[in-house]
């Protein structure tokens, strides 16, 4: 389903990876590991089509992703180090305005329910800038509930700032996605086996 072929990328003289090859199919999960600055974020951005590799290709369903980009991109759900939230808007407004763009059209009630489930009931009508770090990350992750139609989830350190209960809730979501035939690539520095069935790729 997803094939990475001979991928190479260098920042200036700093070669991050060279001739990287791997492939994943439905229900696969992979954890990318490596020290700070080893190129995990860069790899994830290349895989999701945000960034062009120096060499090699990302092949999706047999076709090179760059060739029919807008097709490919519709299967990707990317979450980076930054939350992608507008700090002046409330959690509800953020989701309501962002999700239609990503191909989901939840009703207000659905959004509200998802935020409640994420433990944000008390703060969902506050501007994001007045939330705690973990609350912000929770808002960003609530998006995942509406992204089931996108098969390839690429998550860069999704567990940052989350407390124990939020981490286990996220693990449940990730598991459910894989079990329903999704593909998951993620990174985390946290030292526990979040998704034990995940294979591992080290960039060091």
């Amino acid at each position, binding site marked *: 389903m997803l094939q990475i072929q001979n991928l190479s990328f260098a920042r200036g003289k700093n070669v991050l990876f060279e001739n990287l090859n791997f492939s994943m199919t439905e229900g696969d999960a992979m954890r990318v590991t490596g020290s700070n600055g080893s190129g995990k974020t860069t790899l994830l951005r290349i895989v999701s089509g945000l960034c062009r590799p120096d060499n090699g290709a990302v092949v999706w369903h047999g076709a090179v992703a760059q060739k029919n980009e807008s097709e490919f991109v519709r299967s990707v759900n990317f979450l980076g180090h930054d939350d992608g939230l507008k700090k002046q*808007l409330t959690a509800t407004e953020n989701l309501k*305005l962002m999700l239609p*763009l990503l191909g989901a059209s939840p009703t207000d009630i659905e959004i509200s329910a998802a935020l409640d489930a994420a433990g944000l009931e008390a703060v969902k009508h506050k501007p994001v800038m007045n939330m705690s770090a973990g609350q912000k990350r929770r808002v960003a992750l609530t998006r995942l509930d509406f992204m089931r139609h996108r098969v390839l989830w690429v998550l860069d350190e999704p567990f940052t700032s989350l407390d124990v209960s939020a981490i286990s809730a996220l693990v449940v979501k990730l598991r459910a996605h894989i079990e329903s035939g999704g593909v998951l690539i993620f990174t985390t520095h946290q030292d526990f086996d979040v998704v034990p069935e995940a294979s591992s790729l080290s960039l060091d």
Partner: protein
Amino acid sequence: MYKAFISVLRKELLLALRQKTDVVTVLFFFLIVSSLFPFAVGPELNTLKIIGPGVIWVGALLCSLLALHRVFETDFNDGSLEHLVLSGEPLTVLVIAKISAHWLITGLPVVIVAPFIGLQFGLSAASLSLLLGTLLLGTPVLSLVGSIGAALTLGVRGGTALTSILILPFYVPVLIFGAGAVVADLQGLSIDGHLSILTAMLCLSVALAPLAIASAIKIALE
């Protein structure tokens, strides 16, 4: 596609409403300055008539310029630009939505306010409608061309300064032909040249800007 366009546009307008940003500042400032000018220059109507269009056009230009860095920069910094690119909708369409929002926030208010300020400068009804016409032709050019500059300088050290150096050479001719048309008309000269140049600029920038911006954004995200 249409839905994506609308949702980007709504988001931008809501944000502007919440954040108000420099736009309100500039508009407020524009109002004050242009109403002070008649005081400063004195009530001699002929002078006022001649500087009026210039003052209004300078205001339009400022409003446009100073809100430019909001078009893509905040999205770039907080990670939402990536979501736009990965939405799968044609990026050019989303870009057009963002530019439209920029125009609605900076161009439209100026167009609406201009007649009142024009009156203070003693412009006649004919001059006023000509001024409105040139503003309607010209301000979208400012938004389009300005956004190219804003997109090209994303993530570059000293981005804002660079933006203005890149785009002012395009902004100034718009100003000159826009304000010039009204003055030429006052002096009884033909204005066909002015108007056709403005129209040509508009057509060109509508055709080229969205493409250029979409590629610039992709490059910035690499």
